[in-house]
């Protein structure tokens, strides 16, 4: 079973994402901001990260930059999932090392389609 770290400051979003991803056979870990997410990754690298952008303490982008700098045998696949729906943000995310990008609102079809594109399913 693959693991996915769901990072979002909204409890509702985390719950919806958890439901969808559990349905796709992922084990879920949750984090409320970038800082918590980074700590989770330092404990154990997940296979995938579903990542919000705007969060208190540490943003999704700051987290991604830190994550990519961590020495790891296997860096996780990172899929942004955010309301930042413009080209400039998307480009910035890709440059920082994001593998895919979901523009909110999302549904199970979009998550499944994106996760399968990057080879997670």
């Amino acid at each position, binding site marked *: 079973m693959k693991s996915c770290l769901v990072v979002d400051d909204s409890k509702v979003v985390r719950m919806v994402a958890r439901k969808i991803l559990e349905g796709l056979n992922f084990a879920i870990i949750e984090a409320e901001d970038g800082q918590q997410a980074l700590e989770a990754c330092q404990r154990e690298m997940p296979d995938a990260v579903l990542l919000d952008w705007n969060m208190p303490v540490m943003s999704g982008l700051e987290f991604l930059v830190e994550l990519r700098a961590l020495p790891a045998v296997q860096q996780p696949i990172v899929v942004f999932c955010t309301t930042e*729906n*413009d*080209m400039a943000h*998307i*480009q910035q995310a*890709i440059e920082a090392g*994001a593998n*895919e*990008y*979901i*523009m909110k609102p*999302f549904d199970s*079809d*979009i998550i499944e*389609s*994106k996760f*399968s*594109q990057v080879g997670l399913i």
Partner: protein
Amino acid sequence: MNVKDFEFISQLLYKRSGLVLTQEKAYLLESRLNPVARKWEFKGFDELVAAVRASGNEKLLNDVTEAMTTNESFFFRDQKPFTQFKEMILPHLLQNRSSTKKIRIWSAACSSGQEPYTLAMLLSEAKAQLAGWNVEILATDLSTEILTKAKQGVYSQFEVQRGLPISYLVKYFKQDGDKWQIDEKLRGMINFRPFNLLSDLGALGRFDVIYCRNVLIYFDQPTKAKVLDGMAKMMPEDGFLLLGGAETVLGISDSFKLIPGQRGIYGLTPQSDPIAAQKAS
């Protein structure tokens, strides 16, 4: 709706498009045709059916037919047919058409354009190898309304997230509010035009590759066979036919055989295995 009306409309559909409307789909009829009734300012479904019975108005008959088609499509639909294009079909053609440097591709039921645009993106990615080549993509559909959308190449946020890699969105699309329009250059690579698969296929010329995906599924066996046999005549010996995930030639037409090891891709019979031939050379 009474049985007579249902039979009349399903006959009309079958004659004009090959679509087979089964009894279980009867419920679709009213919901799909109500907007047509509104557009033509009929009082309701019954008045529309009466008008269709009475008139030879081509426009009205077309609207009714188009309303009954299913237009759903995604970029990189099912992924595999496009990975195969990139990894197997294109290398084969680059090698075997090097004297003419000409490739013709047909998207035979292109709907809102995601299928031909996916091919245009893949060809764009290979543009270094294709320098000096003449590659034509013909994209056709029965529905003129859906072709208008295809030509504009404007998609919703939802549509660009089903199957399209984000790097391609960045590279090949322009954002306009919550809509995304595909690059002018890519739009220029495709020739969109209305075409009914029930008409004489030969009129379109010959093609090295035919994508005929998720349309045969709506036809009955004799219509499927006729379309497949027609397509076989439009192909060179080493041409490729790609069908949808739920479609096959097996038991329908002997004109094509499955290319060994390549699910969903068919070649002509008899024919040497193009992949083996490619490896051998």
